[in-house]
């Protein structure tokens, strides 16, 4: 059985990739997927710790995260669709109406 460090490392790599994706990419869909990546990296860490500590609560929490992620996808995709319809673009740099 692989030690927990491995899972955590993978989780960290996945989280950093997601974070960088959000910060660097300009396509909203990609940014959205990067967020999902971060969420799943967190899920992985939850599951790894749950296994490591032999506690179910971590796994149960993952279900909550997945539920919230699903809801977030529903709202986020709706927003993106609406945004595309009005501005004919999903480039985040075009959406700067709230600048000072």
């Amino acid at each position, binding site marked *: 059985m692989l030690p927990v460090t491995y899972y955590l490392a993978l989780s960290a790599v996945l989280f950093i990739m997601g974070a960088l994706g959000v*910060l660097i990419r*300009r396509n909203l869909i990609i*940014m959205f997927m990067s967020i999902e990546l971060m969420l799943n990296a967190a899920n992985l860490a939850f599951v790894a710790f749950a296994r490591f500590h032999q506690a179910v609560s971590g796994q149960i929490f993952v279900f909550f995260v997945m539920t919230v992620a699903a809801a977030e996808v529903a709202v986020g995709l709706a927003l993106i669709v609406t945004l595309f319809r009005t501005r004919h673009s999903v480039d*985040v*740099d075009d959406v700067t*109406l*709230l600048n000072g």
Partner: protein
Amino acid sequence: MNLSEVTSVGGFFSLVPLVVFLPVLGLLINMIFGGRMSEKAIGWTASLASGATFVVAVLLATSLAGHPEAVTIPFLDWINIGTLELPWAFRVDTLSVTMMLVVGGVGTLIHIYAIGYMHEDVRHHNDPSRYRRFFVFFNLFIAMMMILVSADNYLMLFVGWEGVGLCSYLLIGFWYDKGKDGIGNALAGKKAFITNRIGDFGFLIAAFLMFQYFGSFNFDVINEMAPAVAAAAPAAVMAMTMFMLLGVTGKSAQLPLFVWLPDAMAGPTPVSALIHAATMVTAGVYLVARSFALYSLVPAAQNWVAIVGGVTALLAATIAVGQFDIKKVLAYSTVSQLGFMVAAVGMGAFTAGMFHLVTHAFFKGLLFLSSGSVIQGMERGEHHVEHDPNLKRKMKQEHGAGHFDPQDMRTMGGLRKRMKITFWVYLIGSLALGGIFPLAGFWSKDEILLESMHLHPTVYVLLTIAAFFTAFYMTRQVVMVFFGEPKSEPAAHAQESPAVMTVPLLVLAGLSTLGGLLNLPYLHTFKEWLGHTLGEAEHAVEGAVEGLAEGAAHASTAWYDLGGLDLRVALFSTVLALLAIALGWWMYTRRMEELQSLPLAKRPDDPLRKILGPVFKVFENKYWLDEIYKALLLDRYVDVANFLAQKVDWDFWHDWFHDKVLAGGFRGLTWVLAKPFDLGIIDGIANGLATGMQGLAGQMRRLQTGFVRNYALAVFLGVVVILGYLVLRMI
């Protein structure tokens, strides 16, 4: 003295408040119900109220006859401040009751007369409400006069003093829409009021001085303390009496303040009789008599009072000679007679002064009322002429188209045949005033002359000459009015007055005839009666008289002394009066007829005008005193008033101080507050804050780029920082 003591005294003393409240009741009835009452009812209500007052006064007099000491009836608390306790108390003594009898008695007769007299007025002017107004004022006057004479202290006396002044003002201006330019009567009322105000100022100062030195206004207290205070502060007592003299000259129409009384004849004739002859104007004499204790202590002040009285008596008597208005002659005669009384009380002959006050109230009231009867008789004659075209035309030819004056004696004449009762009572009044034996005026005037011969020879000379003039001008008046031929159509058709007017005249004529009985030689009833109140003062005077008499002619007291009547004085003054009457008779019958032969242009209206020349003009124009006062005082006063109004008030106070200093200063201050302070500092702070905020916000807004990744990076970095902090803390 408290109330229980009063009841122990017995008699009718406790009735004394009624003398004030009965007339008040009368005037209240007339005021409240008068609108629905008939003329007669109003007049008789007022007369009954006055008559009831007289009855109360008689009851008081009968009580006093058995108990001659002064009684004080407390009525209610008036002023209580610190040590000053001033109750409204009624003082019943022989002096005050004498005044009450005169005011109530003569007042009632004049009330009854006025019922008839004022009826004519209403008929002429077609305004019934004035009837009620007249009697309300009349009752108010009686009430005020009673307050004056029944007061037991100077301040309460002053209340009545002012009250009668007010009634005088109201009644002089009773026909306020008449007179010269339609305001002549109103101006006469104002003149009386303002002139009296000068006198009242003197009275008030005297009262204040009394309070300062005696700590009280009460007559008894002041009389008791007077010798001590006079010894300690003689100047203060002198000042009191002199300021009081100013008050007397105002109210009793003496020099220099007498000018209001002749103008006061603008009022209805009953007013002239009651207020301006019989009662109110004698208040000054009463005041001096009341203050006998003070005056006896300062001979210098007494001297002044006597001189003022004597000079006024002579001056006014000479003016009366030159007057043609029937009431003006009587007015100056009143001033002159008041001069006699003031001179008497000034010399310390208080009984003689009060005696003359009483008899004068009888015969001068009689003369005024008869003159009112004459005037209304003339008016009825004029009315008759107006309704007869032939007579009217004739009158226009004789007198021109101008307004006929029913008071001008030059238009009268021959009235003795047409107004018999009026003529006879007028004659009695004139002879009484002229001082003919045995009428009332003879006794009282003679007593004054006698006392003055001993006490003040200068005044004796003045008064004797005045008495000569008195007999002369009264003869002149009687002859001009009643004898000879009628000098105008109204006089030829004059009619006698109704009984309601003539009956009071007859009663007064009786009083004028018999008034001397009050104080006959040997008996001295009146002197004894007043002596209970004026006791010490009279004794002191008697002592002085005796002393003088002893020094002058001790040996020869036998033949001319008739129990207090000096035959020399009496005979001399009677002879003088008879001479004056004979002279007057000759001048206004014979001489007048001789003058009728002259052509109309050269014919004088008065034989004296030809004889005396410019002197008569001086008399006729009253020594130009009104004009002199106007030039010296009134115009200067108006100048000062104008200066104060224009220069001080308007130019300095209003234009300079208010506009320039106050308004200008305020405007400057508001400018400073508005411009530099508000706009500069307050707004500067507010605007500065706003600008600063704006600048700061301008900087801050740059943070809001609108790029999602910037926000995300901020969140990310924030998380890193927080996590870093937590990790570092763990280590």
